[in-house]
């Protein structure tokens, strides 16, 4: 084990898992974006149809999905800042490990601000 590489940015540990999470959340957000542009564009050709689609966005199960989507967006956004700092900040690579946990901490904090508000909106109208 003595020769096991350690401290590289993308191999093993936090560096690798943040990269994996960044990809997974990115793909999830991308596919939501495709749907979201289409459902919003529907308003131009069928206003009543738009309201019908929005009604499905207000169900409890899609509401839970929205909560997950925002969690994914929060991680992807904050970890994106971490990546920028690794690339452009002189000490970025040195602190990438700490910055990952700052990302997680901030994401949890922002999520704690969002989730109760959204879930109350979702579940108080069922």
């Amino acid at each position, binding site marked *: 084990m003595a020769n096991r590489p350690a401290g590289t940015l993308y191999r093993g540990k936090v560096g690798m898992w943040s990269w994996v999470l960044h*990809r997974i959340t*990115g*793909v999830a*957000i*991308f596919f939501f*974006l*495709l749907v979201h*542009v*289409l459902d*919003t*564009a529907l*308003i*131009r050709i069928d*206003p*009543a149809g*738009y*309201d019908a689609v*929005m009604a499905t*966005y*207000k169900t409890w199960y899609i*509401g839970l999905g*929205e909560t997950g989507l*925002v969690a994914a*967006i929060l991680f992807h*956004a904050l970890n*994106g*800042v971490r*990546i*920028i700092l690794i*690339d*452009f900040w002189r000490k970025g690579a040195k602190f990438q490990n700490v910055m990952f946990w700052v990302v997680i901490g901030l994401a949890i904090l922002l999520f704690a601000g*969002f989730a109760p*508000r*959204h879930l109350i*909106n*979702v579940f108080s*109208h069922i």
Partner: protein
Amino acid sequence: MSVIIESPRSRKRSGFNLEKYGWMYMRLSGVLLIILIFGHLFANLMVGDGIHAINFAFVAGKWADPFWQVWDVTMLVLALIHGTNGMRTLVNDYAEREWIRRTLVWLLWITCVTLIVVGILALTTFDPCGDQASLDLLAKDGANVAALCAAH
């Protein structure tokens, strides 16, 4: 016998490096998208009734304001290109056959351009006061129809 030292293999590249600009785009658009999407989520999901307030009249109200029109179009363009370029990176990494990789990358950009055009057309040609059915729906959704249509 002398040792032959080859000249360095990395040539100095001249000219336009598209991948470099792609790399820069991801970071630049990423920063802007944090502002745009966080603002979008706050205005649509955190204020008032959140998701339950969103309907035809809600969007008609927002798009009566040039501020949100510019906000939404900028977000649309930046996000779709950011997402498509990110997906292109994944396709380049994971598609093993060249023709599959090429096809998927083409599909991604076609989808991207199509959705940008569809989104911009939907927003710029949007007229919530254009016909009676729309006006009825605005009233049903609880909008102040006179004020809203004066703004559009």
